[in-house]
């Protein structure tokens, strides 16, 4: 089984909220995510994504940082208030001016630099999906 297929196995029952303001990138990346995840929700900025998240606690959030209305950092802080364990991956541009130290402090699951490289995307998703799956298994076990 290839790594892609293994990833598909891990993510096929998971949901993801993907936040990106730029439409072309958003469309392409969400298509990629749809290849793996059970459900892909899309937000075009922090504010909208927060609304979506209130209704649907997805297993994973993947978000851009620089966005109009509400930037990624603010959104993550808001989400952390209600769900400190939320799994989050940040996609950000090389050299961008976001405050890196502050971002590090948010205890994220990973970073992806834009433009995204496929192997890094797959590896990170694999790692994070495994953790989510394990957590969910533990919860289920505890339930039993």
């Amino acid at each position, binding site marked *: 089984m290839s790594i892609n297929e293994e990833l598909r196995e891990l993510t096929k029952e998971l949901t993801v909220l993907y936040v990106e303001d*730029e439409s072309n990138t958003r469309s392409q990346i969400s298509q990629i995510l749809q290849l793996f995840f059970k459900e892909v929700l899309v937000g075009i900025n922090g504010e909208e994504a927060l609304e979506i998240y209130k209704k649907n606690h997805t297993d994973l959030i993947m978000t851009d940082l620089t966005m109009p209305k509400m930037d990624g950092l603010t959104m993550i802080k808001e989400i952390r208030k209600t769900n400190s364990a939320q799994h989050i991956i940040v996609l950000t541009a090389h050299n961008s001016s976001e405050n890196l130290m502050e971002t590090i402090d948010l205890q994220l699951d990973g970073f992806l630099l*834009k*433009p995204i490289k496929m192997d890094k995307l797959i590896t990170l998703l694999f790692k994070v999906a495994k953790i989510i799956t394990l957590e969910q298994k533990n919860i289920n076990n505890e339930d039993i």
Partner: protein
Amino acid sequence: MYTITHKYIDNKKLIKWIHENNLSKEEECLVQFFSGIPTEEFMQEITTILYQNLPSAHILGTTTDGEIQGDTVSNGQVIISASVFQKSKLKSNIALHEKENSFILGKDLVHKFDCKDMKVMICFTTGITINGEIFLKGVKTLSENNFIVTGGMAGDNAKFENTIISYNGQIITDGAIAVTIHSKYLHVANSYKFGWESVGLPMRITKSKRNRVYEIDNMPIMDIYKKYFGQTVAQLLPAIGIQIPLMIERHGKKIARASINKLEDGSLLFAGNIIEGEIVRFGVGQPEKIINDSKFICHEIEETINPESIFVYSCMARRRLLDTKSHLELISIAKKCSVSGFFTYGEFFSDEHDNYLFNETMTLLAMSESNERVIIPDTIKNTNYNIDTNNNDNIIVNALTHMTNVIAVEWKKKLNSEIEKNKEREQASFQKNKLAQMGEMIGMIAHQWRQPLNAISATGINISLLSSMGKLEDDKIQESSEFIQKQCQNMSATIDTFMNFVKPAKESKVFQLTHTIESIMQIMGTQLSNHNIKVIVKVEHENAVIMGYEDLLEQVIINILSNARDAFEELECNDKFITITICAQKEPLCIMIEDNAGGIPKEIKEKIFNPYFTTKEQGKGTGIGLFMSMDIMKKSFKGDLEYIPTKEGSIFKMLFNLNK
């Protein structure tokens, strides 16, 4: 033709002279009298006697600052010159200076004559009340290239109180008279000699009105005279003004302008116009050079005609400067034929280009009705006037003139090298600014390109994954390929836009302000919206156009927008905006850029336009941006750049063509 002269002693002797020479029987007789006694009573007396005894002659008289008869120069005497013509017709007339408009005076006078066969017009005007230069412009309305204009302005022995001319028994205290000579057979030639040397630095006339000069190099004119010649000499103005005139250059001719009156408001009145903006130097007369120069005037005239009569209208300054040597100028011409004339307050001269009011010159009118040409004997060509070149005064004047000019040249050189250095410095800051702007541009390209790069990269990943999963369909390949191509085209277009901005100085042309703003938004728009800054463009004046270098204006606007963008960086604000307004008013045209980025702290507000002032962290700002922007607005658009603080931020107001 011939001319005879008489030195006035009393009325009886004058009448005797007239009768002895049968002048009253001559049909075409021109009588000029030059009176060193500038009183109305005396002028009236002389002109009346002449008119009674020579009723058919054309009698023109003028008061003087010295008289010329042959090679003799007198002062306070009266010389009468009578010219009899055989092959020419004379006409004469008079015009009064009624509307205090010297142009109308000249025009009125000249239009009383008809041009047919007119060879020369000899004019005398009163010396103080008339603007000789404007008068000649009036004369030019008819004279242009058609005939020679000569003559001069009346003097009054340097008193500058009352100059008088007279015509056929009538005296005139404010006006002009002229005689014209019409003939197919008359040969005429005019010539002039100058000989004054320019000294010192070129200066600019910064305030003048016609022949009244207020300021030179932004200093009151009297202060300039005091500065360069000292208090003693300055106090002797205007009398001494004629010896230290201002020198200007027109049509390649050095023209001197002597001051003839000092007015209460500190301005000086000159014997001719000096135009605001004109470059002048001081002139200094050196007797030796003046006499040497005038030595050749006779040969110049003889190259064209063999003169039978010569009239000399020479400047009072020459007589006063050359003093006992003033007759030396006349020796060579007096050997040839009858010479008569006077020392004026301004000489009239004309050539194929224009009519000129001269000061400080000796002008000559030579006439002949014969066709013979004279061969000048070599002995006369080499006439040595035995001028005492070792004269101590001459040596010192020469030396001082030389020294002044050497100092002026050295000083100018030094100044030029300073200017050169400053230019280099300016060039360097300009380069630095250019580099900073390039940096800005690259930043903007990065923003512009990042998104298509992300999208293209994601598309690649998408296809690759689909393929590995066996889900890749032809449609998807087509769609992705088209998408990638389109993105690449956009990126390429971005490069073109930027290249346009980076290209060195485009040409100066008329451009629309809306176009400028549009192209700036094309390259900066993404960057600003990435920073969550909303840009509103308000066009109140749709067709606002400017003449100049569009790229320079682009630099200014980009600079202000970049500053606003950087100011927002340090600001927590959800409603960041920049409003660019092309203002409705037509004059002066104006662009306003307003932001709510917090504004500029009061304590540094005064310094923002200073070069090298920056609040940005080390390495980020050159501090040259607003300074250069101001410079561009002032130099390239004759405008200004204003900073206006607002409650939440700043307005930068760019004004165009303020001093249109």
